[in-house]
């Protein structure tokens, strides 16, 4: 079963971490990537540039209008996206659990082009 793991974090929180703590968290992430690569569960990772580089496009008066940044008020922004292929939801949640320090992690199944007639 394929899932994406969406990691949301607050850049201000990250920026305020002591150097050793940030390194530790990065090491946890990298170790997990190594583990998932070794087990054949890892498919892809997308690391997103700082939210300062984001542009949001939405219709205003029927015309696409561009504004800076991601959606207005939220302090937590999408920081990276992992694509994994695992046995099931329990395993996906176990992986997400490792990523939770200083982040909120969302797990979503990916749609499949295959299906069964009913």
């Amino acid at each position: 079963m394929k899932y994406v793991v969406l990691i949301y974090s607050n850049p201000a929180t990250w920026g305020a971490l002591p150097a050793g703590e940030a390194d530790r968290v990065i090491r946890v992430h990298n170790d997990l990537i190594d583990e998932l690569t070794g087990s054949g569960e890892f498919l892809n990772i997308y690391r997103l540039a700082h939210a300062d580089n984001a542009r949001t496009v939405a219709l205003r008066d029927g015309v696409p209008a561009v504004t800076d940044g991601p959606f207005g008020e939220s302090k937590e922004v999408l920081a990276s996206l992992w694509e994994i292929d695992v046995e099931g939801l329990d395993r996906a949640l176990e992986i997400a659990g490792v990523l939770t320090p200083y982040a909120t992690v969302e797990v979503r199944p990916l749609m499949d082009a295959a299906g069964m007639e009913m």
Partner: protein
Amino acid sequence: MSGAGRVEDLLRELAPQVLGALVRRHGQFDLCEDAVQEAMLAAAVQWPRAGVPEHPRGWLVTVASRRMTDQVRAERARRRREETVAARTPADALVAPGPDADLPSAADDTLTLLFLCCHPALSPASQVALTLRAVGGLTTAEVAAAFLVPEATMAQRISRAKQTIKAAGARFAPPPVEERADRLRVVLQVLYLIFNEGYAASSGPDLQRAELTTEAIRLARELHRLLPDGGEVAGLLALMLLTDARRPARTLPDGSLVPLASQDRSRWDAAAIAEGVALVTATLARAPIGPYQLQAAIAAVHDEAARAEDTDWPQILVLYELLERLAPSPVVTLNHAVALAMVRGPRAGLDLLATLDDDGRLAGHHRLDAVRAHLLELAGDPAGAREHYRAAARRTTSLPEQRYLEGRAGRLEP
């Protein structure tokens, strides 16, 4: 068929025999499996151009054995360097075998390989990947394409699977008699998993996956040839044939799903149906009954109805009652409820479905909502049906299923 196609078929057939011969000679399943894969790739490049050698099996065994010796030598050299152990005489003495020197045991080898690749220490995904490569003779790239994952991921999965088998202490030998029935059950599960993976994908953008049904049927046929008395082996082969026979009618050219009741039955594969029906009929008459035989018998009753309204539902109901006693599961109950609704009316089916709500194992599963919606529609409750079609559409992770379920809900708009 093209030359390349013939070569590919031949290689797939020879793959398990060559691997078996190699493992019996050298031990070390993991290294042998790599060596055979390399020999197969070499053959896939050379044979279509230079022609198939006179003794293709002997050719593959020789080439794979050479790779194996190279690997073993390299490994020994590395160890010598590391441990500075006195040099040993390399035990090469690798004589090219007679063309078909190992042939008498080729059948047993294929069976032993199947048991090994479907080792219970492996996850189902690993069992499937290893079986397709080592027994099916598919390349890592082909297996990766079939499961829509990068080749590196699949290579890692296969290599990890071989390590796991090694760590579990498994040897290249048939399982002990007392484990055999359980191990055979796992092999059948793995073949059925491969079949379903391909069957679900038989349209749209992933036709590569659809080839898995052909591969699963080929392997089931081979297993049936090796174990002609295995009632469940025959049952699984029949079930695959009878299900796959409907493949041309189960989707429209745009990839949308057609439910069984609305399929154009003139497009079903009559030859596959005849073969499947004959197989399941003969098996039910002589072997102890099992779940695959019962599912095949149910598929046969569906396939034998010229029109959906001719379906012998009372017969299907009896078969589901048997199946529910023999191998109870929430999915069986789900299908049983449909049969019950067709014989005794939708309310009877809905009552049986209600037992699944307390069971919990299917709670929140889109199939439970989909079946409930269907039965509510039959019972004349369009509002309730619409609500459950919508819930099923939200819960499924399949695009064509979602489209179908949305469509059903849309037709019931007031």
